[in-house]
């Protein structure tokens, strides 16, 4: 190998054959998924949260919020 050579990427074969694992390809036992709910307003002040509807959804394990 020298300067000016064009070596193949070491992971190219994995990517070309579909063997490469991307984050969305990983499945772990008991794996949870997150869903982001962002503010519809730019630079708004958060005055409070109403979380009952989210809590009532089947399968919701936790709701993480920013401190107000």
């Amino acid at each position: 190998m020298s300067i000016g050579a064009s070596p193949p990427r070491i992971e190219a074969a994995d990517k070309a054959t579909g063997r490469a694992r991307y984050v969305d390809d990983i499945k772990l036992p008991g794996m949870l998924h997150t869903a982001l709910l962002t503010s519809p307003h730019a630079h708004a002040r958060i005055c409070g949260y109403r979380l009952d509807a989210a809590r009532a959804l089947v399968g919701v394990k936790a709701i993480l919020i920013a401190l107000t």
Partner: protein
Amino acid sequence: MNDRLALLVKVNGELHEALASPAATLLEVLRDQLSLTGTKRGCNHGVCGACTVLIDGKLARSCLALAADVGEREVTTVEGVADGVSCSAVQRALIESGAIQCGFCTPGFVMALTYLFASDPRPNRETIRAALSGNLCRCSGYVKIVEAAERIAEARV
């Protein structure tokens, strides 16, 4: 839509059983039920081509195909284009041409090129570009991908 359908799908020459919602797409069954994650979920709207597979030898967006609708037709994914040991000519050309960057679009391009060369062994640049027009590469590595296809066409003189 909690009802589940028992499906039989033929993928890469093997019959698989899957339990899926009647609304499940072929892409969801391939990735989530059969763990064939080589087929990528890009836009999930039939725009980007990352989920491209062959159904009975024809190009199809697996995100737009209902799994229940595939029936007994033969599905080929990126995992099935080579013999499992070595790469296909298309895969080899992409690797050797430096046509793979992040690689997320690559399985879709592999399928599009596999289809192209099955129907036209010596396509010219215009034909190649048209054949790849349904696949997006957000690294924008199109030049190398077209070069890879031209390399295959030239090798078949």
